[in-house]
Structures are given as structure tokens and as C-alpha cells.
């Protein structure tokens, strides 16, 4: 098939079309993955996540510049929320990355969540595989603005950067937030703003508690400051990414994470496929019965999955 070969040759239009197919659930997308999968597993996937307004896009823009300056080719997958009502979306992350538009060593793709929870779209993993196969050395995945537990990116990325910002939420909020339990690099962005010191102290406290709780952890997450709009902090973050990559390489963690990610992807695809099959098999009558309260949801599920359960 032509498109898969063109993806492997690094052709931008082919990669872009493959990502569209995968985003749309077009069967041609799966065919491309079958062809390119043996050639993937090389790109360093870097997640960037944090609350809305933390400056993730501006930070991504700055990081693209820093990685380019170190000779890396960089792909970006920028995820923005789709409307749960219409399915439409405003995808505006690349506005902040406009200066990289004409750089042939940079590929930026905007994706809507299309109903997926967790801060990513269902297609994000596959989009990363396409960019990997196209030969990009680093793939940056920028999540939607997240709250406390939308941390799917942690399973996808080799290195996750958590971006915080002064003046958002109180201390309790920061400590209980699941988002701070994940991540390998922490950045307080907009560090020129009031409240920077307080936010930095909160992060320090949280990282300290984390280290106490997990003495076996062999990576100590750095806490960095940035003013991404002014380009401040770029070199330090790029250094931290390189250090984490070196750590992963020396401990076997890079291949381990890549492998676990693909394992998870199989299970995610399986869940999706089985749900579709079961749904198609059900028709509407069982759902109608539940809607009319003639049947409870658990009994409906038992009937829908009865055959499958016995086989298991």
C-alpha cells in the first residue's frame, strides 16, 4: 500500500492522511499501522500535561525550538477538547507554535478528544506511531487541560512533564491531585508571576512526600522554573528530558515503557471492539427494557455477555 511506504519515507502528506484515517476509525488506518508497526519504537514520546491555562502550548512551542536546536526532528500531537454535544472542536494549540510551521523538521497535528476521557483522544497513541515511523526523534504529546485524574498520557509517554502555574488551586488541591503523583519532570511556568514562591514550595512538598512514599523509585523528578512566553527555562527542561532519556536507556526503562504501552493499547482496542460487538448483538430491545425499567442494567449486561463469560 502506497501510504504506508510514504509514511516510512517520512512524507508529510502521507503521515497526515494516515492520522486522519486513524482518528476517524477508517479501516485504512489499521492497515497502515500493520505495515509500519515493525518500524516503530524508536521515537522518544514526551507528554506535556497540566491544568487549563498553565501555558502548555507555549511551553511546547519553546521545547520544540530547544529540541530542534539539538538536532532532533520533532513531531507534536496537540489534543484539545471536542464538544460533548456536537462533536465539533476548536483546535487552537498551533497558534502558539506558528514559528515552527515552515520548519520541515517539525510536524504539528491538532486532534480533538472526540468523546474520550483521560486527556487524550483514542487516536493519540496511533498518531504517535505514525510520527515515530516517519522518523521523528521526539514526539511531544500535549494533552487537554487536565484536572486531577486525566493522566492517560503517563501510560503513553516515556517522559511526562507536569506543568503548574502560580495562583491555581490551594495546597490541599495540589497534594491530593493524582496528576502530581505522576510525571518525571515538573515545571512551574509563568514563574515571573506573583505567587511563584508559594507554588514552588507546594510542588517541593509534594515531591518530598512522593519520594518518602516511594523509596524504591530510582528517578528523582527535577522541579524547574520557566517563563515559556519569554523562552526562559528552555535549556534546563531540554537537559532534564535528555537526562531522563539517558536514565531510561541505562535502566532498560525505555524499551520497558514502550512495550507496556503497546500491551495497554491491545487491551484498549479489545475493549472498544468487544463493546461494539456486544452493542451490535444487543440490538435495541434490551436497552428499551432497561429504559422502561422492566430490566435492571446488571441483568442486561449478563445477557449481553453471557456467551463470552462462559467461554472465559
Amino acid at each position, binding site marked *: 500500500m502506497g501510504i504506508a511506504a510514504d509514511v516510512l519515507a517520512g512524507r*508529510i*502528506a502521507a503521515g*497526515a*492522511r494516515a*492520522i*486522519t484515517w486513524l482518528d*476517524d*476509525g*477508517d479501516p485504512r488506518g489499521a492497515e497502515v499501522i500493520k505495515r509500519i508497526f515493525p518500524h516503530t519504537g524508536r521515537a522518544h514520546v514526551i507528554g506535556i500535561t497540566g491544568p487549563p491555562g498553565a501555558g502548555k502550548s507555549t511551553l511546547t512551542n519553546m521545547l520544540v525550538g530547544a529540541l530542534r536546536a539539538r538536532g532532533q526532528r520533532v513531531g507534536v500531537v496537540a489534543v484539545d477538547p*471536542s*464538544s*460533548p*454535544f*456536537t*462533536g*465539533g*472542536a*476548536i*483546535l*487552537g494549540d*498551533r*497558534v*502558539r507554535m*506558528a514559528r515552527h*510551521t*515552515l520548519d520541515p523538521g517539525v*510536524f*504539528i*497535528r*491538532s486532534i*480533538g478528544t*472526540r*468523546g474520550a476521557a483521560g486527556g487524550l483522544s483514542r487516536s493519540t497513541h496511533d498518531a504517535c506511531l505514525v510520527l515515530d515511523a516517519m522518523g521523528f526523534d521526539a514526539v511531544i504529546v500535549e494533552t487537554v487541560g487536565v484536572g486531577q485524574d486525566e493522566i492517560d498520557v503517563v501510560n503513553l509517554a516515556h517522559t511526562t512533564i507536569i506543568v503548574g502555574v502560580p495562583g491555581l488551586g490551594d495546597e490541599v488541591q495540589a497534594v491530593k491531585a493524582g496528576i502530581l503523583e505522576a510525571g518525571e519532570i515538573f515545571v512551574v511556568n509563568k514563574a515571573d508571576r506573583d505567587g511563584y514562591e508559594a507554588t514552588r514550595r507546594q510542588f517541593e512538598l509534594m515531591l518530598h512526600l512522593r519520594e518518602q512514599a516511594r523509596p524504591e523509585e530510582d528517578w528523582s523528578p527535577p522541579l524547574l522554573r520557566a517563563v515559556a512566553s519569554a523562552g526562559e527555562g528552555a535549556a534546563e527542561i531540554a537537559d532534564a528530558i535528555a537526562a531522563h532519556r539517558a536514565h531510561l536507556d541505562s535502566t532498560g526503562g525505555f524499551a520497558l515503557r514502550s512495550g507496556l504501552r503497546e500491551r495497554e493499547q491491545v487491551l484498549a482496542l479489545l475493549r472498544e471492539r468487544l463493546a461494539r460487538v456486544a452493542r451490535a448483538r444487543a440490538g435495541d430491545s434490551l436497552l428499551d427494557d432497561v429504559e422502561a425499567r422492566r430490566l435492571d442494567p446488571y441483568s442486561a449486561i449478563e445477557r449481553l455477555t453471557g456467551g463470552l463469560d462462559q467461554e472465559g
Partner: protein
Amino acid sequence: MREHSGRRLRVLLAKLGMDTHTVGITIIGHALREAGMEVIFTGLKQTPEMVVAAAIQEDVDVVGISTLSAGHTRNLPRLARLLKEAGAEDKLLLAGGVIPEEDRPFLLEAGVGKIFTMGTDTRDIVRYLEEWWAERQAAETV
């Protein structure tokens, strides 16, 4: 929450040159989103070259240019030509904003697919895109 899957119309909206009037393009972006489309904004001060590169990376179906400060007789034909050179002439090129009557035949001749002038109801733009999209999909499945 409804399940949304399958093909979805993707539209890139951009402004060229030093034109910084963003009200119209923002309103149109939101109207297209409400109609279930994915709208990619690229920001201000774009060159035709930047719009073409972004349109290909984003694999959009439609490129919409808002123009409110002249320059359109120069940069819109240039954009159409660059799209063609990049093998992306199947993308629909829309123009909207202040475009004098006397310029329109020339622009349509030069590769602009459709022109919406000031005061166009956003519902008319949505309807036009939905019809264009239905025709395009019908042609694809033949």
C-alpha cells in the same frame, strides 16, 4: 454524552498578512464547531506558505481565509497556486470578509472555491459546507 466517531469535516481558518481583525473569523469558527466540524486556528500574520504547510499537516478538507484589509488579490491567488503545487488542490479554498465585487471573478478564476462577503449569515456558510461535504463524500464512495 453522545458517541462521536467516523469522518468529521476539518476546516483550517487563517488570516494572512498584517490584517488583525479577528472578530469575524472567531464567530465563524464557533459556528462551524457548533455544526460538529473540527476547526483549526493558525493565528495571525500567516503567509500563504504557512497556511499551505499547516493545511497539509492537519489534513484539512477546507481552508478558510478571512481578509479585511486588502491584499487579497495578491495573496489569495498565491495561496491557491501553492496549494496546487503541493498537490493539495482538492482542498476547498474559501474566502470571506471585505472583497469588492469587481475582484470576485478574478479570485474565483484564480482558484478560490467560494467567496462569502461581509454580513453573510454563519448558517449560510455552514449549509454551504455541509452540502459541499455531502457531495464530496458521495463522490469518494463511488
